[in-house]
């Protein structure tokens, strides 16, 4: 039965069609012949300065040129080729080791087929500088689909299980037991939405354990808008999303970056095919035909998508040297290559890549694709790049609101002036009668026209000041009145804040006619351009020499089309990395570790895949089924592998302590955003609004980064103005400033984007414990929450605790736990009753419930601080 079901699934996922391997038959020098020469011939005929017989066999061109005895190769005619004659007769190699029959055959066939090369050979033989081992690194080879293995004795629910079970079988390990229902709903809800299941959701799932329930649950979660927020946030790590420019001088804000964040979240929610998602981000601007139309939603989306290429640090608004520009471009290239290709290209900026077969020419060829949007000599500063697509009705609305605000402001200023006049009058009254008139004249005279006598008078009665001065210094003249006026002014500010935001887009696009001549930068120095380069993909990823099809003559078009060509190439389904890198990330977020454990580095110094066949199968399947991400999630989440419990055993810890083979699930600590969002949600504060400008972050008096904006009073920082309910939005909508990460998020390891983040790290440090114990936010939240709980469950503490445990842990409290909680509450109540604070004593006299409330709040705090809340099984 198990087998039947699996086969059906295999069928559904397209496994039955034969896999089309790469075309073989055509022999090329690089792939087939050079390795033989390198091993057997290079030593005498290439590597050394002096070459035997003056023959260099490292390039076909050089073979044709030949040595002392003339050309050694006649393409298409082995018999006429000196090379073949010498090899056939075993004259060469001249040592004791000769070529095998097979090797000889390869060489002969290759000559016969025309002695072809995979690609044009470089002018300089030294450019052929990478070893085959490097070039043959697994990640640079085409995706190779294998049959799904079906090991006996395993519960195989999706193709994934076949691959995982095969490796388990090799170690004689079974799958672990399925995790229980509560664990599973908690795990999958967190994985897909970044939130915890509600008590109702847990109940529905556990009370009707119909066999459809699990897949229905997955569907429900994938359809939830919270899914896009969770998975969009993951992508934002790769893209290096930040709302500030970075750099050393000021880290100025990017108030429009959020539109890109929304684009990403929407794309995930709409399950936009990932190939299109990639194309839009790399070349959305070029996908627009004709003029940009601010009323065309597609145009807006495409332009917003290109914000991807603007996410890297770019301090050139404030510090705009050639080096600054170059670093901004280099960081963008780094983000693009690590997120899309899973390679650390940046190393090749100054010298050939240390580990990967990527030369500086590769780097600059790749960069040439993007040079028209990063023209160092025709650089646009970030603000100049923004485009304003505010629709007319929004502009009208803005004008209307501004008019109202202005009227109110004028009216207010008028009243304030009148008020100041009254004050002035009062102050004049304090002047001795005989001098009043003169003093009045003095103060009404403009400062520069005053006579000495008038100045004297005003010195003598310093409280007499011009009306404008009094109005400006009202805080000292009449503080209560000042506060009142300020309140009114705040209202005007609030009205101004209702203006529809300007639709400014952080776009990446080319300017007609600005096509820099791309070159290698000698020693990485932009002031030192070297050899010109054409746009090109990385040689190592295109070993078959296929053309990417960059448009040739672009001078007449408004954009070069280079990025379009490259994005198509990346997503044509045959690129060795695009799909692998993407599915590996999805895997990483579900299991806590990628099949390749270094999601941003598939190169030679990255980690090797734990399940290479699975990775390739998934990548291939992903492409075949339209780069459908939700489908990939389903396949993973329906697997036995995913649903296992996480418990370690002695045997597992002995055989596979890092759980590379996945004989169990991994215990995962919640990420920073999930901690904050879950606390807000459990305490019933979370505001599930999607999209829009970010909730601002600022620094409070203690130096802590908190939500809010800086209040300025009389020109000085005067505390932080909170953001009301917006302060309780999900973390994805909280402003990301590189230099000022929200304290709570930074404490729990939210990464700083410099330029992006491939892999988050989690720490366990006492500052996190201190947050849970002492931070005013957790105290406030639990305080309000307990008030609500008590009003919800006024009669039964037991029901209250059941509800609470379900909310925080998705579980039912044991009798022991209930006892422990009751005991705790009693003790706390006793302590709090004795608290001598006067205000508190008054409060509990007025409201006896306050006592219970405080005890319960301190219990909620404990539950939220506990490991059971912080870790997902």
């Amino acid at each position, binding site marked *: *039965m198990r087998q039947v079901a699996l086969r*059906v*699934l295999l*069928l*559904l996922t397209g496994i*039955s069609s034969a896999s089309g391997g790469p075309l073989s038959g055509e022999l090329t020098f690089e792939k087939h012949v050079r390795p033989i020469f390198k091993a057997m011939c290079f030593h005498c005929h290439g590597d050394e300065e002096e070459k035997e017989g003056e023959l260099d066999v490292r390039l076909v061109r050089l073979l044709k040129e030949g040595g002392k005895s003339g050309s050694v190769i006649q393409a298409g005619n082995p018999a006429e080729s000196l090379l073949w004659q010498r090899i056939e007769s075993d004259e060469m190699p001249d040592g004791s080791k000769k070529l095998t029959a097979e090797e000889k055959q390869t060489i002969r066939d290759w000559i016969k087929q025309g002695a072809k090369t995979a690609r044009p050979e470089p002018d300089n033989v030294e450019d052929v500088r990478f070893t085959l081992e490097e070039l043959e690194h697994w990640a640079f080879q085409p995706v190779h689909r294998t049959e799904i293995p079906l090991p006996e004795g395993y*519960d195989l*629910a999706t193709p994934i299980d076949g691959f995982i079970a095969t490796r388990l079988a090799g170690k004689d390990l079974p799958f672990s*037991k*399925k995790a*229980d229902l509560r664990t599973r709903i908690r795990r999958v809800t967190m994985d897909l939405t970044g939130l915890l299941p509600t008590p109702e959701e847990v109940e529905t799932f556990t009370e009707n354990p119909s*066999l459809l329930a699990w*897949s*229905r649950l997955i*569907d429900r979660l994938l359809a939830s808008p919270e899914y896009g927020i969770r998975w969009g946030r993951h992508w934002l790590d790769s893209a290096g999303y930040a709302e500030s420019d970075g750099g050393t001088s000021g880290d100025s804000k990017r108030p429009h970056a959020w539109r890109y964040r929304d684009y990403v979240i929407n794309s995930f929610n709409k399950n936009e095919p990932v190939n299109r998602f990639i194309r839009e981000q790399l070349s959305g601007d070029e996908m627009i035909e004709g003029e940009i139309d601010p009323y065309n939603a597609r145009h807006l989306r495409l332009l917003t998508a290109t914000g991807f290429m603007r996410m890297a640090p770019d301090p050139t608004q404030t510090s705009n040297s050639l080096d600054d520009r170059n670093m901004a471009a280099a960081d963008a290239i780094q983000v693009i290559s690590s997120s899309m290709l899973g390679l650390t290209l940046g190393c090749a900026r*100054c010298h050939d890549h240390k580990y990967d077969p990527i030369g500086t020419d590769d780097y600059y060829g790749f960069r040439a694709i993007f040079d028209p949007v990063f023209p160092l000599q025709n650089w646009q500063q970030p603000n100049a790049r923004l485009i304003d697509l505010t629709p007319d009705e929004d502009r009208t609305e803005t004008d209307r609101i501004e008019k109202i605000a202005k009227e109110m402001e004028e009216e207010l200023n008028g009243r304030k002036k009148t008020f100041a006049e009254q004050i002035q009058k009062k102050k004049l009254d304090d002047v001795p009668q005989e001098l009043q008139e003169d003093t009045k004249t003095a103060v009404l005279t403009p400062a520069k026209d005053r006579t000495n006598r008038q100045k004297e008078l005003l010195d003598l009665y310093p409280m007499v000041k011009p009306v404008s001065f009094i109005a400006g210094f009202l805080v000292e003249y009449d503080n209560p009145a000042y506060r009142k006026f300020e309140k009114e002014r705040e209202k005007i500010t609030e009205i101004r804040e209702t203006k529809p935001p300007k639709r400014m887009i952080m776009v990446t696009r080319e300017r007609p006619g600005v096509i820099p001549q791309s070159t290698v930068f000698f*020693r*990485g*120095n932009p002031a*030192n351009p070297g050899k010109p380069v054409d746009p090109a993909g990385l040689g190592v990823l295109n070993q078959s020499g296929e053309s990417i099809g960059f448009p040739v003559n672009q001078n007449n078009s408004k954009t070069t089309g280079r990025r379009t060509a490259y994005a198509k190439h990346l997503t044509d389904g045959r690129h060795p990395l695009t799909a692998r890198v993407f599915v590996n990330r999805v895997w990483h977020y579900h299991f806590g570790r990628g099949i390749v454990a270094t999601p941003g580095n598939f190169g030679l110094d990255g980690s090797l895949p734990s399940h290479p066949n699975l990775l390739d199968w998934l990548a291939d399947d992903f492409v075949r089924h339209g780069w459908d991400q*939700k*489908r990939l999630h*389903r396949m993973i989440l*329906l697997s036995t592998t995913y649903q296992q419990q996480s*418990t*370690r055993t002695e045997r597992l*810890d*002995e*055989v596979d*302590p*890092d759980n590379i083979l996945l004989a169990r699930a991994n*215990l995962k600590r919640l990420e920073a955003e999930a901690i904050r969002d879950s606390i807000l949600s459990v305490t019933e504060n979370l505001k599930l609004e999607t999209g829009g400008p970010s909730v601002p972050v600022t620094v409070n008096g*203690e*130096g802590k980064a908190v939500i809010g904006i800086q209040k300025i009073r009389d020109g000085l920082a005067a505390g932080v103005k909170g953001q009301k309910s917006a302060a309780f939005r999900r973390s994805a909508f909280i402003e990301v400033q590189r230099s000022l990460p929200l*304290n709570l998020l930074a404490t729990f390891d939210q990464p700083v984007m410099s330029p992006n983040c491939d892999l988050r790290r989690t*720490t*366990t*440090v*006492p*500052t996190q*414990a*201190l947050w849970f*114990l*002492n*931070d005013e936010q957790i*105290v406030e939240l639990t305080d309000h929450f307990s008030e609500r709980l008590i009003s919800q469950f006024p009669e039964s503490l037991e029901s209250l605790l059941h509800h609470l445990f379900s909310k925080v842990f998705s579980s039912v409290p044991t009798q022991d*736990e209930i006892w*422990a*909680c009751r005991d*705790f509450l009693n003790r706390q109540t006793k302590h*709090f009753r004795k608290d001598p604070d006067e205000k508190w004593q008054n409060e509990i006299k007025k409201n006896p419930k306050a006592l219970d409330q*405080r005890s319960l709040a*301190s*219990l909620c705090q404990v*539950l939220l*601080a*506990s*490991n*059971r809340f912080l*870790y997902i099984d």
Partner: protein
Amino acid sequence: MHKMAHQLCSRRHMLHTSAFGLGSVAAGWLLKQDDLLAAEPSSDPIKPELEPMMHDLKPKQPHHPSQAKAMISMFMLGGPSQIDLFDPKPELIKRNGETFPGDVKFDNPAQASREIMAPIAKFRPHGQCGMELSELVPHLGEIADDITLIRSMHTGSNNHLPSNYAMNTGRAVSGRAVLGSWLLRALGSETQELPAYIALTDPRGLPLVGGENWSNGKLPSIYQGTMVRPVAPRIFNLDAPRHLKGTPQQEQLRLLQQFNQDHLDQHPGENDLAARMKSYGLAARMQVAAREAFDISGESDSTKQMYGLDQKITLDYGTRCLIARRLVERGVRFVQILCQGQVWDHHGAIKTALPQRCAEIDKPAAALVRDLKQRGLLDSTIVHWGGEMGRLPVIQFRDGLTQRDKVGRDHNTYGFSMWVAGGGFRSGYIHGRTDEFSHHAVEDIVHHYDWLATVLHQFGLDHQQLKFRIGPRDLRLVENGEARVVSKLLS
């Protein structure tokens, strides 16, 4: 397989988009039969099959009597130039501008030259020992008789990351535990009120590879370093809310401990859980102790001046050095004082940038040694100053051949210098020698693993015995079989 595929072909169309496409109802149905067969989890309580692995920070006995109890590592990421600071070579002055006669190991051939560059500063002997040091580190000169200068360091991994890993974790690869974590693992903590391992980072930014500099690698996470904020307040949230201060918070911690223990019992072997439990106890005690430890306001004016707190250029580093002393006084085992990024990486503009770095750090670093000595703490505290590499005797033309005022020096991990004081290391002693150009260490070479083995030795630990078992493998800080304790370095 294929046959089966054909038989099911008629259903294929119907199900095509269903399995993992829109709506999994059909797939769910197909799975139904199997789910029936699969045993639902039993309702028995989960029995732990493993004893909970407990790791603690209780003080532990070393393998043999120890000299050192604590260590302060002033790590100079980037590679301070030994040629311009510590390792005088008359030959370089004599042959300034000439072509380097032998092989040079460049990191970056693209900007390399073979042109010899004389030291950018003069050297003169210091102290009774006559240690020759550069005028860029005058304050170090004043404590020459208290330090050991090693002029023959070698890692041989010629880039920052691998060499940094080598110096701190014993091997030139990422993901391993650093020295500080191993010391905690082996010796525990002398303080139950402060993190036993504290990283003091630069307000200008994190060091290269950030938290990996104080990472526990695969050791349990209670052994990882705690990074405090680079500016005051160094630690947030040290004050309990008024109404929870004292007993109520104690009650909270007690209940938390109970719940976490139950949870750990159900998750045997999960180190992170145990570490987090520990972190609460520590956090509670830190509320009192940390405020006091990081508060330098009570230090005397003369102490503050000694560390350079009265001058802008030394204010930050001096403050961190002074805090380091206060932490060690209070039983912290390992303190790292780190620079931002790889600030000593002077590929270019070495003539202006290197003196600037020295001006920030030289005075506070010397003050730290002097201060510890005055307080009788130097004998039991190893003070280390050094980076992961040194630099080459030849010019690197980072900004082109014509920009001669902006030249620098490329990496050199084959022969570089660092100094160490206290903790049973010799004083007024120079160890090892490089060749006449200060490129390769040639005499009494100290490899990174020798250095680590020697440090462990001073802490009473045998580098061969210091192990941690994970699954089938033993982890060790010092894995190299040739590692030896360099007894010449020790008094």
